[in-house]
């Protein structure tokens, strides 16, 4: 069969055709080896005795017979006093806010009989616009984490709240009486009311001071804005309005400042055709970065740079743009980075519609970026400093000062809230030494983490789903947090504790209401009483004051870019030494949710690795060091040393090593224990600013190896290539089918469309035809759908060992393909290309084929077809032959090797009663020995249809949504009824069916219900291959 123009590969091992890769590709199911978790000594292994077999059979028969005889007594326990509007088995939704350190999302919490079972985005929010991220989806599971503390503690001893309050107030008074300093150390607090409580506390204890810091700091940017514009704030960015986006090391789609707001806007700018309102233009995105980040993977042009080059690159870019626009240049630095000239040309061309961002925490770099944006006229168009974003407020200098004070014995009492500096601050070890010496040290952590376990007291706070609160993620946007469940453990909110210790009424709900009534109610219009205002705000989950948008004023650059450039030039030492770059992962983040098995098992968007961090090296660097994938290396920098497994990462800058923060949590709980290594201590501190880079690093082979669990080459599609289809914008504008591949099957009558040859009669779909369209241009690979699906469908976590055996259970996966323009046979060309390949993300789930290959091979009819276009899977009929998985061309069927939810070897929150509360009661928890797969969220389809029937009507267009489509922050997944002409999916397919829409593996004519829209890159140069072909002609 004809190939598409490009060669795609899922990982370096596939490109190289490693022996293991071929072996795995040829056998879909790993054989359980002798050392596997549960190899039954009685029946497993080759030396089974016939008598043993008979014994086991006999026992089994007897056990089954006995078990069947017993009639278990089930209890039905109704409410004692049923809340008026709650009906058991019908979900209630509460608007609330996800807040984790500085991260924010406006959410709806689905509860069933008083327990939250799912988090959805709140569509009313103008920031997150109904989108969620993987972390937001997964935060639900942290609510049911049994490793949390059950109540306040003094050291390791449990105490009552009354005892804790008495002792802490005494201690605070003693410190205050001596005039000793009290420090409240927190991560970013975006709640105005919490800040008011802190102020009240400080009023009672005047020696108290509030110190905020962020594990992944943006303080350099705030400081730069202070010097450039006189406002120490982070502006809001309009990625949708930018035609040219240049990012220097900022992973703005994944982890930088407020990704949830940027994802949607960025995707808006990238949508074309029917999903983009018919527009045929899109933004162009340049990324200059060290490791291949998720944002870099989405860029049109990406160039690897070393971390030390970030500053000079910013200056060089400034100079090049200045030359084009006739401005003054800043000193002379020469740096040769691919695509730099092109980026400068595009920026200058789209002046006023361009945007430059940088991830560096060095204020000098940010000043240059400010100057560049100012020169490009971005302020007022794509950047608004008058609407500051509050999701990162940490002050590195204050935190540094606090640690200095603490070391000098100048701190009398310290209270940590949402902060774990012993773990996540580069100077954590120094702090750990002095904590014990302080008269009062206290942590509000929900578990005895690295910092809390060193404190005298732990007064645990509840999860945000149990709490009251509010948040102001950016100016003029207020959201409320309301509890969706009553307290699980004897915890107390941070604010209530502070109020108690400040001698004020401790009911934070009352305090919150009062604060809103005096502060925000006067800003509202159209309410006759505060109560109706309050109820409306709680219902919506948010409030946007009429005068919320701060008065717009021109933002004129008043900083000294030349001085900043000089500083950068002075520090820049061009060299060939190894450099290290620390980065935050989309899944684990800064490590605060490390004990969340859903996040641990979520594959990294780019490396597809889970349950580990690793030293990412380019192939060339790895060859130079003499190591290969999974070899252990010793990374040394700043006098610190660590052993990590190697990850060969295409797109990694040569002579650099990238390592993720957020791992190596020792005291987070069972799921996080022993996962990865902590690299925070490697972060450098420059003039008090935390920098996630380190120069003069050595990387040496350590001997031994540690296999990283990667899902990238699992489920290979066996050499079938026409899986991804992509084109370039220049071609798309001329011909909307650019990049499409139309397979033909040769018959005696000549080549025909595969759809015209079939053995089957097909199924009628008279009522509904559920289908999906996935826009590859909007999909940024964030994995929110993966975790959303996991939460909705009770998908089990299997752990690192099992993932290594290719037994992960995710119903939807994001396939990440690398590609290059080189011919498949051109090995040297491929090798060059693999150094910095293009990347495509493709969500892959059950395609619900109308001619489903799985259905015809099931010997027991456990998988059948419905008249609504669904490929149904009946667990209780499945006998586990796995023929269906074997015959599935998309490799989306999963086999339950174990009874994960009742097996002590899988301690991932599901084998205890608390963790089981997260289970969706509408979805069967699959037992051992059956196949499972995406059901198109049939439980939601059934529920939606029933709602319509109860109201004697047809379902509204788009009323029924699958969990993945609902979770998607960029609307890349469109789910709906293709029989309803009013639904979005029908409207999109109406035009795209003949343009961008394609079925994966169309040539085998399985007629999937899922269509993909081609990936279009905004690249204008000719790919090498075609150029070469033309030169040959």
């Amino acid at each position, binding site marked *: 069969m004809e190939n598409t123009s490009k060669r795609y590969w899922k990982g370096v091992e596939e490109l190289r055709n490693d022996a293991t890769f071929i072996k795995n590709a040829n056998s879909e199911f790993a054989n359980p080896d002798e050392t596997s978790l549960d190899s039954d000594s009685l029946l497993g292994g080759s030396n089974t005795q016939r008598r043993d077999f008979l014994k086991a059979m006999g026992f089994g028969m007897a056990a089954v017979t006995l078990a*069947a*005889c017993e*009639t278990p*007594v*089930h*209890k*039905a*326990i*109704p*409410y*004692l*006093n*049923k809340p008026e509007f709650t*009906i*058991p*088995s*019908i979900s209630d939704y509460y608007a609330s806010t996800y807040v984790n350190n500085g991260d924010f999302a406006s959410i709806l919490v689905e509860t069933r009989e008083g327990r939250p079972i799912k988090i959805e985005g709140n569509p009313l929010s103008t920031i997150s616009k109904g989108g969620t991220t993987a972390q937001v989806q997964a935060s639900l599971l942290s609510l049911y984490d049994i490793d949390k503390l059950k109540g306040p503690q003094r050291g390791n001893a449990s105490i009552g709240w009354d005892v804790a309050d008495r002792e802490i107030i005494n201690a605070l008074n003693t410190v205050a009486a001596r005039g000793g300093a009290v420090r409240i150390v927190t991560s970013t607090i975006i709640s105005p009311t919490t800040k008011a409580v802190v102020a009240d506390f400080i009023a009672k204890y005047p020696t108290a001071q509030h110190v905020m810091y962020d594990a992944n700091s943006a303080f350099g940017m705030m400081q730069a804005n202070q010097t450039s514009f006189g406002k120490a704030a982070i502006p809001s960015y309009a990625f949708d309005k930018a035609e040219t986006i240049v990012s220097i090391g900022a992973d703005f789609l994944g982890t930088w400042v407020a990704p949830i707001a940027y994802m949607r806007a960025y995707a808006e700018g990238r949508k074309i055709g029917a999903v983009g309102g018919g527009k045929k233009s899109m933004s162009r995105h340049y990324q200059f970065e060290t490791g291949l980040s998720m944002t870099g993977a989405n860029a049109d042009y990406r160039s690897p740079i070393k971390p030390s080059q970030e500053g000079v690159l910013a200056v060089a870019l400034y100079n090049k743009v200045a030359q084009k626009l006739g401005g003054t240049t800043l000193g002379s630095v020469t740096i040769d980075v691919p695509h730099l000239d092109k980026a400068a040309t595009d920026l200058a061309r789209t002046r006023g519609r361009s945007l430059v961002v940088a991830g560096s925490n060095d204020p000098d770099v940010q000043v240059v970026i400010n100057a560049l944006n100012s020169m490009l006229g971005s302020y007022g168009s794509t950047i608004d400093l008058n609407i500051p974003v509050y999701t990162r407020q940490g002050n590195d200098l204050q935190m540094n000062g606090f640690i200095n004070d603490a070391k000098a014995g100048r701190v009398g009492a310290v209270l940590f809230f949402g902060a774990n500096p012993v773990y996540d601050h580069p100077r954590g070890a120094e702090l750990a030494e002095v904590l014990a010496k302080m008269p009062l040290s206290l942590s509000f952590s929900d578990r005895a983490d690295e910092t809390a376990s060193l404190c005298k007291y732990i007064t645990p706070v509840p999860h945000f789903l149990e709490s009251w609160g509010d948040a102001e993620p950016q100016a003029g946007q207020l959201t409320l947090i309301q509890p969706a469940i009553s307290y699980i453990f004897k915890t107390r909110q941070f604010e209530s504790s502070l109020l108690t210790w400040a001698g004020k009424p401790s009911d934070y709900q009352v305090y919150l209401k009062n604060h809103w009534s005096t502060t925000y109610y006067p800003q509202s219009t159209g309410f006759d009483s505060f109560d109706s205002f309050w109820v409306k705000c709680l219902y919506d989950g948010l409030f946007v004051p009429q005068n919320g948008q701060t008065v717009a004023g021109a933002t004129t650059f008043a900083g000294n870019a030349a001085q900043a450039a000089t500083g950068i030039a002075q520090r820049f030492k061009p060299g060939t030494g190894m450099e290290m770059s620390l980065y935050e992962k989309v899944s684990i983040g800064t490590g605060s949710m490390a004990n969340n098995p859903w996040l641990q098992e979520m594959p990294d968007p780019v490396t597809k690795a889970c349950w580990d961090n690793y030293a990412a090296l380019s192939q060339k660097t790895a060859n130079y060091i003499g190591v290969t994938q999974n070899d252990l290396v010793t990374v040394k920098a700043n006098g610190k040393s660590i052993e990590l497994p190697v990850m060969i990462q295409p797109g990694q800058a040569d002579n650099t090593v990238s390592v993720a923060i957020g791992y190596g949590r020792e005291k987070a709980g069972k799921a996080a224990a022993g996962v990865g290594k902590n690299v925070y201590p490697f972060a450098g501190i420059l003039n008090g600013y935390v920098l996630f880079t380190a120069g003069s690093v050595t990387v040496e082979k350590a001997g031994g190896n540690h296999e990283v669990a990667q899902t990238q080459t699992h489920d290979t599609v066996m050499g079938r290539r026409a899986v991804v289809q992509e084109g370039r914008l220049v071609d798309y504008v001329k011909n909307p089918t650019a990049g499409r591949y139309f397979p033909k099957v040769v018959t005696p009558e000549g080549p025909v469309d595969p759809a015209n040859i079939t053995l089957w009669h097909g199924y009628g779909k*008279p*009522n509904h035809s559920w289908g999906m369209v996935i826009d590859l241009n909007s999909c940024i690979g964030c994995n929110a759908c993966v975790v959303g699906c996991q939460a909705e469908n009770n998908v089990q976590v299997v752990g690192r060992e099992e993932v290594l055996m290719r037994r992960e259970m995710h119903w939807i996966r994001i396939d990440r393909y690398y590609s290059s323009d080189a011919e498949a046979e051109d090995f040297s060309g491929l090798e060059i290309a693999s150094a910095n390949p293009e990347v495509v993300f493709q969500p892959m789930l059950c395609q619900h084929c109308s001619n489903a290959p799985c259905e015809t091979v099931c010997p027991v009819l456990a998988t*059948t077809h*419905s*008249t*609504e276009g*669904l490929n*149904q*899977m*009946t*667990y*209780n*009929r499945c006998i586990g032959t796995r023929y269906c998985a074997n015959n599935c061309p998309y490799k989306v069927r999963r086999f339950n090797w174990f009874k994960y939810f009742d097996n002590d070897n899988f301690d991932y929150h599901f084998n205890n009663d608390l963790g089981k509360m997260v289970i969706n009661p*509408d*979805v*069967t*928890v699959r037992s051992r020995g059956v196949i499972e797969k995406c*059901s198109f969220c*049939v*439980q939601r389809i*059934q529920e939606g*249809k*029933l709602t*319509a*029937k*109860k109201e*004697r*009507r*047809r379902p509204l267009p788009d009323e029924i949504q699958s969990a993945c489509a609902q979770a998607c922050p960029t609307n890349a997944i469109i789910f709906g009824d293709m029989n309803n002409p009013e639904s979005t999916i029908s409207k999109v397919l109406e035009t795209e069916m003949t343009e961008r829409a394609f079925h994966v593996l169309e040539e085998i004519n399985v007629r999937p219900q899922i269509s993909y829209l081609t990936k279009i890159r905004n690249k204008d140069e000719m790919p090498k291959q075609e150029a070469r072909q033309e030169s040959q002609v």
Partner: protein
Amino acid sequence: MSRLSTVYGVVALSLALLFSSSQTIAQDSTAAAGSPATAAVPAAGGGDAEKGKAIFANNCAQCHAVTDEVVVGPGLKGVKERAPGGDWLHKWIRNSSSLIASGDAYANQVYNKFGKVQMSSFPNLSDGDIDGILAYIDEASAPKVAAVVATGDQGTAAVAQGGAVASGPSELFTFVLVGLLVVMLLVLGVLLVIVTILSKAVTPVGVAGDGTQSAAPFSQRLKEGLSSTFNNSTLRSVVIWLFLLVATKESIDGLFSIGIQQGYAPKQPIAYSHKLHAGQYKIDCNYCHIGVNKGKSATIPAANICMNCHGVIKKESPEIQKIYAAIEQNRPIEWIRVHNLPDLAYFNHAQHVNVGNVQCTTCHGEIEKMEVVEQRSSLTMGWCIDCHRKTEVNTKDNAYYDKLVALHRKESKEPLKVANIGGLECSKCHY
């Protein structure tokens, strides 16, 4: 002799098979006879009253009848005429307690007359909704032509049910007759065998040529006779075959009944009687099982629903004291679940009762006659599927089905059954 026993065996075997198969036939016929009773009752009128009917059924019918019969609250026949004018009724329905608190004379009179039982508030009902309810009450309480049609239809249903009921005793009679016949035949057979053996033993078999009788004693001859009978290979094989067949059938039946709890009637923590509440007092099922029209679970009522009445009625009864104790101790009552579907099967009450208009008794049996609730239906998948095959879809006045009905009419003259719209597909119940 041997031929005779073969005949007995065949007769007995065929009778046994007939007996067991007639059981299944009987089950089928009751189910078939029951189904017309579930057929939709055509509703009268349209417009506001139509909407009002639905609202009434979901919100009011638990406590109020449209006739002048008192359920919990007053019967609503003529309520428009007897209530004070203006929007008094609207106020009362939205929030009766505030009206009572405001000192309204008629409101207080009604409140006191009906045992000071607080009526639920319905702040969400619009004026149109309430007018709809009132229109429906007018319509339903006044005798109308449409109502006659409805009664007529119910009449046929009743006849059909009556037929099923009437056939009950006659079937039982047949069973008893057939059973007796079989037993008698078996006894006859055994007796015949015994008689033959005995007669052989008593009467000397062979008389010697010389006229002297062979000297074998009676016991000897009896022994011979018995052994010759037991050694008869045909008889032996018939007995063995019979035993094997019966044993196989029994074990297959036994295996099929594993996990089926038909007839399960556990003792409940409180001796609540449906016979009293639903049978004698005719309290609507909806009143306590509030979820039946709305959600998956019909729900066992919360103690506060019991307290709506038992706050004043029969407070001193030891069984009712248990509810008081539960409330005081803040410990919910732990009822024993009678109907246990396996986790892998999804069943939704609203789909069947609200949308499908299936009567409670169709699955739960004559609950109004049960002192202790018992599982009447087998709740097996075969039982579900059987009903889905036979039951017509309640498509009336439900726009969801309009297109499906039109499509079905084009293809078939048969009524639209649940099975025709995917009611047998796996993912309708298993997911």
